[in-house]
């Protein structure tokens, strides 16, 4: 008992004060930023990119696995701002374009979901389906509700049964062997419900995009409400994305 108390005292208060406005370490690769539109760099980077995320003067960070190859090799063209607010409510929102007018690149954004009316904003239950995820996104999703990030404080929780859930949050690039279970889970969630894609694999198939062992046919039929990029998606990104989906981010 005495050890326990000592440990508790040393443990202290661990929760991040405000996950929505937290500062993150500068080395974190968040929203990609173009510093300049340099033809040669872009084409060279496109060749380097393991997921063909770069084409033309655009970078699709729904595909990007944030390996940082482009940044390391062409530091004066590519940069990743330490910005975790990177979720988007549309697939296209994840494509960073070079805007010649502003001489800068675009930013993703999320507008509140229309499917979820009142009542959901203060309480939102997630049902995770890990379909061939490498367990990194799963761990980060788990971390989102741990003592530090504590998304429970907003009434966001991961529930045991899809019957109790309001959203299906998918991680991983849906393998053929998981396709049935994924659809089954979606059907098991009562209306109103939304689909959330978490991580590059879920959004675009990531590194496995062209592999025959995948079966993303069901996914293409669905329209996801939220895309949370990252490899894996950072807990802060997940929390911020969900909160903005619920219209609780001003």
């Amino acid at each position, binding site marked *: 008992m005495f050890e326990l108390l000592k440990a508790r005292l040393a443990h202290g208060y661990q929760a991040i004060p405000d996950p929505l406005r937290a500062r993150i370490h500068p080395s974190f690769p968040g929203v990609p930023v173009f510093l300049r539109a340099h033809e040669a760099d872009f084409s060279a980077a496109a060749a380097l990119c393991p997921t063909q995320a770069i084409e033309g003067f655009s970078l699709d960070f729904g595909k990007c696995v944030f390996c940082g190859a482009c940044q390391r090799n062409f530091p004066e063209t590519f940069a990743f701002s330490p910005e975790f607010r990177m979720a988007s409510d549309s697939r296209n929102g994840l494509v960073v374009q070079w805007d010649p007018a502003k001489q800068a690149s675009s930013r993703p954004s999320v507008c509140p979901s229309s499917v979820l009316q009142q009542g959901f904003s203060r309480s939102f239950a997630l049902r995770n389906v890990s379909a061939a995820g490498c367990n990194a996104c799963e761990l980060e999703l788990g971390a989102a509700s741990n003592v530090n990030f504590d998304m429970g404080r907003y009434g966001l929780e991961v529930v045991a049964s899809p019957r109790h859930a309001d959203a299906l949050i998918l991680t991983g690039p849906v393998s053929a062997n998981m396709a049935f279970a994924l659809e089954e*889970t979606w059907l098991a969630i009562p209306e109103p419900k939304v689909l959330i894609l978490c991580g590059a694999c879920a959004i675009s198939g990531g590194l496995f995009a062209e592999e025959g062992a995948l079966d993303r046919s069901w996914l293409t039929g669905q329209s996801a409400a939220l895309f949370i990029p990252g490899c894996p998606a950072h807990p802060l990104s997940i929390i911020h994305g969900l909160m903005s989906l619920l219209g609780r981010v001003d």
Partner: protein
Amino acid sequence: MICCGLILLWLTLIPALFRRSALFTTMLCLASVCLAFGFGRVLFSSAPQICHLQLATLPLAIQFEVDALAAFFGCLFALGFPLGMLYGHFYLKAHPGEGAGSHLFWLGIMMISMFLVLLLRHILLFLLAWELMSLASFFAILFDRNNRQTRSNALYYFVMMHLGAAVLLCGFALLYLNTGSFSFRNLVFAGLAKWLLIIGFAFKAGFFPFYSWLPKAHPVAPSHLSGLMSGLMIKTGIFGIILVLFRSEWQAIELYILLAVSLITAFNGVIHALTETNLKRCLAYSSIENIGLIGVGLCFWQLGILFANPLMSALGLAGALLHTLFHSTFKPLLFYLSGNILLATHSLEIDSLGGLHKNLNYTSKLFLLGSLSISALPMFSGFISEFSILGAILLGFNSHSLASTLCSVVAGGVFAFVSALVLIAFTKLYSIVFSGEARSEAASKAKEHPLGLLLSPAILALLSLVLGLFGKLGLAFVSPLCITLGISQSQLVGLGGLLRGISLILVLLLLVSVILFLLKSRLVKHSRHSTWACGYFKGSPKLQYTGMAYINPLAYFLKPLLHSPKLHQEVQGYFPRELNYREELFDYLDKGLIASLCRWLGKFYGLFSGIQNGKTNSYITYLLLALLALLFWVLGVPR
């Protein structure tokens, strides 16, 4: 009225002989109506009615005495028989057995004899009727007589009944020696006689050491019969016990013994009901448990008298009688429905059933009502009686002798434990048999039955629901008898007020929940999808809880009280080849005591087998020896 009823009943035997089931049933109904009216009149006018019947051929005048006690049980029977026969008629149609011919006849005899038992107050005639009842029911049980199991179990029943009858005979003999009168209309039982009589009746009622025939007889009997037997016939035992209790002086210690026996009966009954895997046997054991509860009520009736606590005795007796009434509604109900299940699936092993709520829609709903009633849940009949009995028990807490307080405490604890176990047993029974998906081919192919097989169950279910909601009705039915058995009006009135209040609350409860449900189903959209199975492809019926699994946490505690030979082969090695698990929980009394008793008897008689050796000369020797012995005896007698 009653006489003509009885005469009609006799006449029913004619169609019975000619196997005219329909006619038999209708006449039976007519007879029962007459009898019901007759008994009802007596009961509510509460003036004992005596009718002499002088038969020239017999040296003695047959005397029917219809007092309140007889009238009460008479009413029960008169209501129960037609319903039972109504079901039986259709059951026999659906399930013709070899014994069908004589079956009806024996049923008729059985019913008549049961009435006679109530009516006769002449020792010999009473015993005669009693004997007739056992005999008739024995032959009635022998319905599927080609089935070996049936034969042996029926025989077992027959033997047990005769043991009981023997004890009864001794009791009455003793009574006769003491009083010199063959009529026991108004004499006080005392001493050994009353104990012998109690034991004799206990055999019929199924009290603790003597119950072992029920779980044997019921499963093999056709369902309508098992319904009648456990719903009504065992009540003749209760009738006798009330008679004896009422007509004799009791010491506290004696009552404590009776109380202990009743509690043991209830407890023992329920733990077997909990662990049984055969539907009908489970119901039989639950009958034993109910008898135990009735016994508890009766004991507190007498204790109340002893401790001059009128409220306690009132609650005790009223509770016991109410439970008698309710039990003869929901127990036949459950037995009839188990008959329906048997007809539909040809199986009574609950672990092989399941999912019947789809195919046997009405049966399942009625069974649910029955289970809820027997689990003494509010809004259903069992609750009222147990409420009253428990009230009596709690009053015992505050009595002034340590012994009685302790007894009440123990009784209260056991009572609550038992009622909780009943709840578990019957939730198990319903949900394993009816809920979920079918566990066997037969269960999935089951078909719902024609109206006939559902009619009397429906009536009984309705009855037990109404009686449960409006406890006052039940009380009104039992109170005349209570009064004649020495309960003061005022106590009953108090209880009545209480019951009225309760039924008010319960009706309110029912309304609110129904409104809530309707509101919800009106406002909330719902869709249907397969049960959540973690996204796995298809469910298999194996992926459901079994009865054994359901009670597993408790079985761990009850094991010591049960005879459980493990027939179990665990998986071996990294890559197991097979896994077989069988576990049966037997009754110690049956498999342990009685079985070994029979063995010993067999051995004992074996000793004499040498005598009959088929040699003429040896027989002549016996003869000579006998003559010599006689000679010596004659000479030995002093002049």
